Structures are given as structure tokens and as C-alpha cells.
């Protein structure tokens, strides 16, 4: 039986046109509140792994701690809530990708620490190793440190529970290989890479059950002190994209690969 806390929030749908603008508190995304959003895919893998683990260990509970604009969180939760059961803790704040990892981690750790009756010694803290909007890769580590959880694993692709309750964890290392670690018991921080689970199907029944708790959680969401202008950004930019599309048929993979290489080299 585990208490699994997943840190994860929404990100602007990466398929949209994202334009940085200068906001009153620093950089922001143009029309951020009107951009379609989705659950950060890295956090999504963590959430689905958490739900899978909880389902295998009756009595376990999954919390999702999300920091994002309250109105957008509600929209995104209408989709996420259909996939797996969880209880939401919402924090109202920006999620455009221009917040500092330390600020975000402090807010998340404080919210987790405030969960009534939480036994931190039994917690598995899950989250995305990376983020589709915040690429620092440091947030989960910082949250764990603030909560005093020293067993930390990043780039996790697999968690197996041994018969003795130990955690066997595969972390990504270079060369497509995994580092195998065994941790005797929680607490531990697991920053997930992609995991091994497909995205669960939308289940309206799960969604309805989740929404009973999600709506009150959103109403109780406190403003998180992040992105308030305490940090100065010298400049921001988005990666340059280039696209060329060809529809090809019956071409050998070697030829396709050669063309791709030539195109990348310009």
C-alpha cells in the first residue's frame, strides 16, 4: 500500500503557435489563457505509472499536485480525470514555461507538506524527469530535497516492486542502457522518462468519480508565489523550426535515412 504523489501540470499544447511576449511580471506566452493545453506528457507518464502501481496494491492512493492557471487546470482535468483515479491538489499560478524551477519546487513541496495526515516516510514522489515547457530537469529533485527525501532516481523507465517490498528501478543512462538500482523501501523520488505504459483510454466513469473531488480542489486552489517578477530574464526565445514534407512510397529505409541526414546537414 503506497501513497503516491505525482507532481505534474499542464503545458500549452505543443502543436500550437507559441509566441513569447513581455508580460508585467516577465516573459509569458501570447494568449496563454486561450491556448489549448494538455497534461505535460512527462508528468502524464508519471501519473499513469502511479495509477498502475496503485491498482496493483489495493489501498494505495494517488495524489496529483498541479501548479497552473486555475481556469486552464479545470479544462485539462476534464480530460485527465477520465484516464485514471487520483485526488487533485491545485495551485493557481502560471504554466507557460517561464517560471523558475526552484520557485515551482518550493510551492509544490509546501503543498505536499500540507496534505493532512501525510506520512512522508511512506511516500513515493513521482513526476516528469523533464517537462514539455520547463526543460531544467531539476524540479523533482528540488521538491524531494525540500521534503527531505534523499533517495532520488531520474530518467526512470521502470519500477518493479520486489516480494520484500523493495523498489527495483531502471534509470536511463547513455547508450540506450539502463542503470539498475534497488531501494529497500519508500520514500523515494522518481522522475519518470517515458515509462512503459500506453496512455489510458478515456473512461467517463473514472472521470465522473474524479470530478467530485477535482471541482472542490480547484475552488480551494491557492495562489502560488511563482512568476511574480522576482527573477529577471535577460532574453527568451523558442527553438527554430524547419519543416519539409514529402509523401513517399516504396522507398527503402536506407534511402529515407540518407535523405534525412542530407536534409539535417542542409
Amino acid at each position, binding site marked *: 500500500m503506497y501513497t503516491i504523489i505525482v507532481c505534474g501540470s499542464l503545458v500549452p*499544447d505543443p*502543436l*500550437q*503557435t507559441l509566441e513569447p511576449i513581455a508580460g508585467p511580471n516577465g516573459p509569458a506566452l501570447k*494568449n496563454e*489563457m*486561450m*491556448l*489549448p*493545453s*494538455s497534461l505535460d506528457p512527462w508528468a502524464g507518464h508519471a501519473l499513469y505509472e502511479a495509477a498502475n502501481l496503485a491498482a496493483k496494491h489495493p489501498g494505495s492512493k494517488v495524489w496529483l499536485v498541479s501548479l497552473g492557471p486555475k*481556469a486552464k487546470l*479545470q*479544462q485539462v482535468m*476534464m*480530460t485527465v480525470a*477520465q484516464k485514471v483515479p487520483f485526488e487533485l491538489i491545485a495551485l493557481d499560478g502560471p504554466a507557460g514555461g517561464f517560471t523558475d524551477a526552484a520557485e515551482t519546487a518550493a510551492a509544490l513541496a509546501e503543498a505536499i507538506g500540507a496534505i493532512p495526515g501525510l506520512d512522508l516516510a511512506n511516500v513515493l514522489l513521482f513526476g516528469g524527469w523533464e517537462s514539455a515547457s520547463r526543460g531544467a530537469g531539476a524540479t523533482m529533485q528540488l521538491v524531494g530535497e525540500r521534503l527531505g527525501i534523499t533517495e532520488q532516481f531520474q530518467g526512470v523507465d521502470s519500477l518493479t516492486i520486489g516480494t520484500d517490498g523493495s523498489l527495483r528501478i531502471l534509470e536511463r543512462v547513455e547508450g540506450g542502457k539502463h542503470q539498475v538500482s534497488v531501494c529497500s523501501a519508500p520514500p523515494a523520488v522518481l522522475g519518470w522518462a517515458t515509462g512503459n505504459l500506453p496512455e489510458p*483510454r*478515456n*473512461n*467517463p*466513469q473514472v*472521470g*465522473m468519480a474524479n*470530478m467530485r473531488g477535482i*471541482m472542490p480542489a480547484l*475552488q480551494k486552489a491557492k495562489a502560488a508565489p511563482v512568476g511574480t517578477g522576482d527573477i529577471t530574464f535577460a532574453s527568451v526565445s523558442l527553438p527554430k523550426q524547419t*519543416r*519539409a*514534407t514529402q*509523401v513517399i*512510397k516504396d522507398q527503402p529505409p536506407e534511402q529515407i535515412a540518407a535523405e534525412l541526414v542530407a536534409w539535417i546537414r542542409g
Partner: protein
Amino acid sequence: MPTDRPTMDADIVCVGFGPAAGGFLTKLAGALLNPDGSPALESPSMPGMPLQVMCYERADDIGFGVSGIVTNAKSLRESFPDLDPAQIPMAAPVTEEKILYLLDPGGASRRPLSMRAADTAIRALGGVLGVQHEAMELPWTPSFLNKHGGLILSMGQFTQWVGSQVMATGAVQIWPGSPVGEAIIEDQTVAGVRLLDQGVTKDGQPADGFMPGMDVRAPLTVVADGPVGAVGQQLDAHFGVPAGHHLHDWALGMKFVVDLPESCELAAGTVLHTIGYPEPEIFGFLYVHPDRVASLGIFVPSWFDNPARTAYRYLQHWMMHPYLWRHLKGGRLRSWGAKSLQESGRRGEPHLTGDGFARIGEGSGSTNVLTNSGVDEAWATGVQLAEAVIELLKAGKPFTKDNLDATYVTRRRASWLEAEARIAEKARDGFQRGVVPGLIGTMLTGLTKGMFAIPGRPSPPHARVPDPADYYEGRISKQELAAIRKDCDTKGIAASGVLMDRAGWPAIPFDGELLVSHQDALLMGGKVQAPAGYADHVVFLYPNDCEACGSKICVEMCSGQAITPSESGRPVFDREKCIHCGACLWNCAQAHPNNPELARVNFRAGTGGLHSGEN
């Protein structure tokens, strides 16, 4: 593997989230809570709970709708009296409106003789008529088309904004990514909806992860699934349509959202309507949003009797017309999309109510084909139904046909919506005789407020699709046509591109920014997605007949190139490219053997589609 179909009770279930459902839920949500936030109406299905209102939307987000919107915003402003357009991204007040007659700069347009004569006269009198850049600006905008004082909107941004407002009340739930498969009909009563099964094969058979779609049972089902929605089609098939009504007139609207070049001098709030080019039957629009962004596109109607009609290629030629290209050259594609429009207007109105259901929005025949306006009208129908529902709930009356007629239909019949719809009813009949009578008829109807019109009897779309050999007679021989078709079938591509090349249309000089291939428009602009585990929603009922079909108009008109020919000639559907425009529903050259009103392709409930929030 769960095999039992789950069931849930609700009070009101709404199918689809667009402008009509937006109006309905906005009005309804406002009445569900007391000023102190406590529930004002108790749930009959779940005593002790607030009214349970569920809205299920097929698309993966509530902002993935498509429409080029310029609207008088009459009904919108009634719902939001303090509406500040600046609150809605991409919204702008209309400041300038022009109607342009576009001449044919290249000679490939198939213009009737009368139009060619008119073109010659216009060119000859160019100095007097103010012809510039191969276009003549009409000296005034007829009052029935005038949107001055109205709004330019992006459908995606508008529905995002409305959805945020509605969900912030906490009174209703809007579930995206939740397609409704069908209505539950019991003893001539609609008893709720069944969501689509998941974990099935292409043909709908249970597979790994099979999850039967949930039955959501409710005393009232609000059908707002648009002109090609599966539930609307089902109700039409089950209950029929009122005598004399039909769904014969359609159009496909295809649009780009474009970053205008720095050199463009068009101001935010500018509205351009075009007629005459690239083909006389194709109308165009260009609306300028704030921040140098424009929505622009064309409408390809069902009475454009071209067996190889395609919207995408024509849209590119339209953009490159000299009058428009001087504004657009150097621009960049931001977003792309397409949708079918039900253009029968009031004569396309289905049974608006029945026991347990009511229909609102475009699928209820609310689009006005004279004023070229649909969003505000759809919104109005939603508000009218919400007022009726509130009245019935407060009176403790059930959602029977009689009660819904006495409240919703009565409101609708007494409203400006009905009055304007009656004026517009015959406005486009003249197009059944040709484009010139059509334009004259529309003007006549508009200026006489519906007293006069040029008569015409709309035929089912399939009855108008000509034999390609007849259409291209004198331009392309039968033998060459057959060879082109065979070659395209072998390559698995539509023939329209080759046929337009042969008919004299110049090649598109792709620039990778605005002039891009159709596939790039899907990827760069539409960002099309399709979740796994759902059945194909486009089904060819008689594939042998499709194989023998001479026109393959379903292939040519497919907005996403999701329908392609196979080597045998049979069309093949690729769900991952479908944008759910529904063009295949009315672009079929063969009548259904058991129902001449229908064609031989099914457009069913499905998932995914566009992922752009700017259309």
C-alpha cells in the same frame, strides 16, 4: 476486459460544444446557482444534488472548432452586455467592409458567357468603375450583408473563451475527447446518449482494451452536434424531417489563419467578401484580426457542378489573385481548417423537438444563407432553449415534445431569428439555375426582404455531380481522362490537381510559408491527430459501386486527403488525416439505394481531428 456497458444518470446531456451549446450552457449555468453559490435547481435524477448537466465534445479540446466568423453579434451581446472584444483573443470590431468582384486574371476560370461579357465590359470601363488589381469593389455593401458594428472572431478562441466562462461557474461539465456515438431511443423517446466504444478495430469489433461506451441517461438530450453530427443524422433518419424540408444545399468552407506580412496595410476589423474567382461559384472571405493576423478562405458549394472539385487548390489560386496577393505575399500560414456548412437554412430545419430531445445550432437549420451568418444565430437557438428549459424546470414540467414546443419552439418562432430565416428561405434558389441567376436572386431576395426570389428546386447533391467526361468536354478527351484517373489511382492521389493543371490552372509556386502543399497544411496548420482504439467513422457502404464510380468526388473533395483512391479504384479512408469536415457526407455521386435523399457513404461519430485552437 470490461464488457458490461456502464450507465450513468444525468439531468441534461448536451451533444457537442460549439456556439449553440455555448449559448445554451451560458444561459443555463447562470440560472443554476443562487447569488450565494448554492444550487438554485435540484437534480430530479439525483435528489439532493444540483442539476447534473453534462456536455460531451468529440474534439480533443473545446477550442478546435472551425469557422471564419464575422457576425453582427446581436445575440452574443444580449448574453454579454458588457462584452469587451479585447477579452477574446483575435476578436476585433468590424471597421470596414467591402464586396469585391474578382476578375479572372489567368483565363482558367470556367465563366459562363454572360459573365465573360460582363468581365469584358468591366475591363473596358475599368477607369470609371475603379477596377484595380483585377477586381472591382462594389460601391456599397447591401444592408442584408452589412456587419458594420459587429465582430470578427476566431471560432477556436471564442469557444475557448466561452468554455472558460461556463466552466468557471462550476455548474456544468464539458468533457472534450468524448464523442457521442448515438442517441438512446426508446419508444420514440430520446432517453440519453451512448458514448463511442473504445478499444475496437477499424470496423468496430472489440479488441485489446475494449471499453464499451457509457450510456448517459437523461430526461433531456440537447443535440448541438452541428451539420454533420452523428446524433443529428440519427434523429433525421429515425424521425424523418418535416414535410417539404430537405438537406440538399451544402458548402465546404476552408480557411487559413495567416500572419500578414509587415507590408500589409489592411487594418484590424477589415472584412472583404469576394465573388467571381477562382470559379464563379466560389465565394471568398478575408477578415483581419488584431496583431496583423487574418482569417481567409473560400466556400465551395454543392451546386458547383464540378466532379473534381477541391477546396484546397482553389483556395491557393484565390489567395494568389492579384487583389489579395498584394496583401498576402510574404505572409505565413498559422492555422488551417475546414468544415461543412448546412446551407438549406430554414428549409433544412429538422424536427426541433421530440420527447426527450431538442435540437439547436447549425444542425437545427439556423444558418442564414442570405446574411451569410451562422454563429450568432446558433448562439441564439441555444439561449432560447436554455430559457425554455429553465421555465420547464421551475414549473416542474417534463421535457416532452409538447412542453418543449410550447417553450423552446414558440420562443424561436417569435424571434428575429425566425423572421430573418423566412426572408432568407429562397435566397439561393436561383443558384440551381446558374451562378448569374443565383447572384441576381440573392440580391433580389435581400433587397425585397424576401418578397421576390428567382425560383429553383434544390436537388440532392449526388444528383448534381456530372460525368467528368461531360464536364471536361472540349478540354480533356475521354481517353485522357481515363488515363489520368488510372494513373492517379495507381499513385493513390486525387486527380483534381492533374485535371486543374490540364484545364489551364498554373502550378502553385510553393514557398514553404504560405503556399504549402496540402499535406503541409494538415501538419503545419491543422495539426491533425487521431487517438487509437476507435473505429473508422467514414464508411463506404457499397465499395464495389465506389470502385466503378466515375468521378470519385469523395476523394477530390476530401479536405484532409484522408480519402484516397486505391489501385482498384476503391476509396480508402485514413482516420489519422481526417479533420471531420464531413464533406464526404455530401460529396458522393451515387444515391443510397434505399433512400434517394442520402448517398453511399456513412459519416459516423468519430474522434480526433484538428488540433489548432485558432481557426
